[in-house]
């Protein structure tokens, strides 16, 4: 994968193209062995990247979840038991004990870049 610039611990990776991710939905990419969920929240004109694994039952499914909003907060609901996570900071909105990691994401020239 093409490396744009690197900091001490993370690197920007070319993840996929814009067309790979359905509008107002998500899909999963594999980056150096890690599963990252990418969401194209086209209704808000925003992109998000998070862990693909739901911490509740360790299922690799968050990219298949339905996205939406709670108040102003963009969120994704896990398909399994509907734990919902903020796409901004990864906190779980209906169960304080869980959270997921989120990653910086950028779109340049139709390509999706994620910093992992």
């Amino acid at each position, binding site marked *: 994968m093409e490396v744009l610039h690197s900091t001490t611990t993370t690197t920007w990776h070319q*993840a*996929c193209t814009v067309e*790979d*991710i*359905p*509008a*107002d*939905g*998500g*899909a*999963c*990419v*594999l*980056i150096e062995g890690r*599963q990252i969920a*990418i969401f194209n*929240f086209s*209704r*808000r004109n925003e992109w998000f990247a998070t862990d693909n*694994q739901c911490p509740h*039952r*360790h*299922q*690799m*499914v968050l990219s*298949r*979840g*339905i*996205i*939406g*909003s*709670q*108040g102003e907060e*963009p*969120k994704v*609901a896990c*398909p*399994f038991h*509907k734990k*919902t996570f903020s796409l901004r900071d990864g906190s779980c909105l*209906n169960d304080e*004990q869980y959270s997921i990691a989120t990653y910086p994401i950028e779109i340049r020239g139709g390509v999706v870049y994620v910093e992992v």
Partner: protein
Amino acid sequence: MSTSTETRVVVIGNGMVGYKFCEKLIAKEKTHFRLTVFGEESQVAYDRVHLSEYFAGKSADDLLMAPRDWYSENGIELYTGDPVVDIDRERKQVRSHHGLVVGYDYLILATGSGAFVPPVDGVEKDGVFVYRTLEDLDLIQSYARKARKGAVIGGGLLGLEAAKALLDLGVEEAHVVEFASRLMPRQIDDAGSGILQRQLESLGLQIHLNKSTQLIQGTDRIEGLQFADGTELPVDMLIISAGIRPRDELAKIAGLETHPRGGIMVNDQLQTSDPSIFAIGECALVHQMIYGLVAPGYEMAEVVASQLIGNARSFKPFDMSTKLKLIGVDVASFGNPFAQEPDCRTITYDNKAKGVYKRINVSSDGKTLLGGILVGDAEQYNMLLQTCKNLTILPPNPEDLILGSRGGEEAGVGVMGLPDEALICSCEALTKGQLCHEISENGQNTVEALKKSTKACTGCGGCTPLVKDLIQGVMKQQGLYVRNTICEHFDYTRQEVLDLIKINQLTTYNEVLNHLGKGDGCETCKPLVGSVLASLWNENILQKDRAVIQDSNDRYLANIQKGGTYSVVPRIPGGEITPDKLITIGQVAKRYGLYTKITGGQRIDMFGAHVSDLPLIWEELIEAGFESGHAYGKALRTVKSCVGSTWCRFGVQDSVSFAIELEERYKGIRAPHKFKSGVSGCIRECAEAQSKDFGVIATEKGWNLYVGGNGGSKPQHAQLLAADVDKETCTRLIDRFLMFYIKTADPLTRTATWLNKLEGGMSYLKAVVVDDVLGIVADLEKEMQLLVDTYHCEWKEVVENPELRKRFSHFVNVPEQKDPTVQFDSMRNQTKARDWKTVS
């Protein structure tokens, strides 16, 4: 680093009550105290009451009272896996096993209890367990894998729970051995025990009463039990649940007063013989007794926490009413269950056929409820308990309380009739008044919200039904209940949204949201709108912007399973299948490594398909003439059939043909919930048509049509809509019935629940779909015909459409790679999904 103003509090024991004490103390006063907690178990405090759910799939983490971080965030020093071994009362300090010495101003003993193990020869043998900690459960679980016969000594509350766990762990024989002449001797009477015993036997438990165990046989590991009456019982594992023994050993070493039969002696303030040391929970002997339940323990935590911040409080005798959970049979006792004439009037209801026994003890003047027992049906437990505790004046016919409303209003006193002081959640000591205030003034009008703001329903969970009623009651009083709107994005009911989408001719989610809603939608309104769009226009559910609004099952046209793989159910109309098609299923399952099972709906399910294999699997199935079975959709499932007049000597009509016709007609149609059907060839009803959303039974003259049946957790028989009609009439009536349901039901409501809620019930339904009082049946039929005419197989469309097909991969950047975290285990020569717990 204690300053002179800080009070140092040390808690020994990080169990349920020790934890609750910390929570209560810091909620009252955070800065003034320096709290240190020692726990013997390596886990931080967890919910012991729901321990058995560990076997049902809850992880140790799910059971935690609070995550480990909670302690540091609240400035509490926590040492787990490090029991206190000595208390120096002179110097006021404790010493832990690892040698840590910590001084205290106040010391709280919350050491709980351990299982009481009677002095029977052989208890040290391998395969003998107690049932108290997570560690015990791990040991039991791994031993049970190789055990075939298990027994539990003790037929009390915990013993029965442990016995059920043995069954769930898959041992072939599970026995309960009880010393007394009845089960749960402290909670229920002989008659109740008799009913309970029969119910448990039907679950597969074997019960042995009046048995005193003398010897545990075997050399190193247990091989059997020998009883005082000379009989024997061969078993290869045993759980002892013969009572509890308070953990007072540390108190004894420290020279505190303990009771000869166990328990740390405390006064009403819960002080031990040393005034700076308190004992709470199951280790404390107060009012001459050990309270072996969590709610009184929590109240003790409250009493001591209040005293430490300077409020005088004492511990009052506590209600010991209990409801048995988990076992699959309702059992409850409350107040004084054993009160007898002439002190009271006893009313009993004993229905052996149904396995229900109820007893209430009413005061001699008939005014108040003293106590009672419920076996087999404990639905009225919460109400009865409240009626008893609050000394509510009884209705003129107190038997109505247990016989239920026989036509008309709910008997007795509804939750809204209780006084404000009535204790609703006894674990958290919340009264009706407090909860109502929280609901009406602070707007916490869901169980989830109340859990967060008050902690109601978070302890034993027994109050949840009552809390739900309370929410409804309060909302009704405020005139709020009437509209069941969808979510924060749509201020409409499902029926209103359906009508508006139709009038405005909207076909995509974003159009609907722009026209009728606000915000960005969510997992509640998106699938709902998806279903309504499908019910109205029947366009492909994955096209335009619709794929991403579907629940995972609909989005992938398959059912998501543990581990993230999918199951595939091809349609097998009426359950009829050719040998060639059976062979194809076998070949496909073999090729893709799928687990196969005959479903409860007369067809075959193939489990464990990777998302990227789905289109390939469908392609092969379609090739052989199969279509989607819509097992993933809120749509028609199966029309079950019996073999009928073509083969059966009793059949009066061809039920298989009619079942196939009906299944072909209604397949793929989206509805508020799934719907099912059955067609039986005669009155013997082998297709169980009366348990279906619509069911047809052949008669000599034609067909009887039943609607509104349901299996599931609240089974209900379907009711007759029309008798002796011909096939065409029958089909037309079903068209109207289904379409009326689709257009008016709340989301995720089966036909049975819809019909129960429909004002006017069955006679109104008949008036609408048979007699056409609303003048809409022509429209209903037309709308249904549109859906029938626009049917398409969704699998086929994906297989043939490269755009849609592309979405069926796990990684969009490496579509050929499957999810490497998916793991299977093998079982009986097939695969199964790896259990949640062991995946990480």
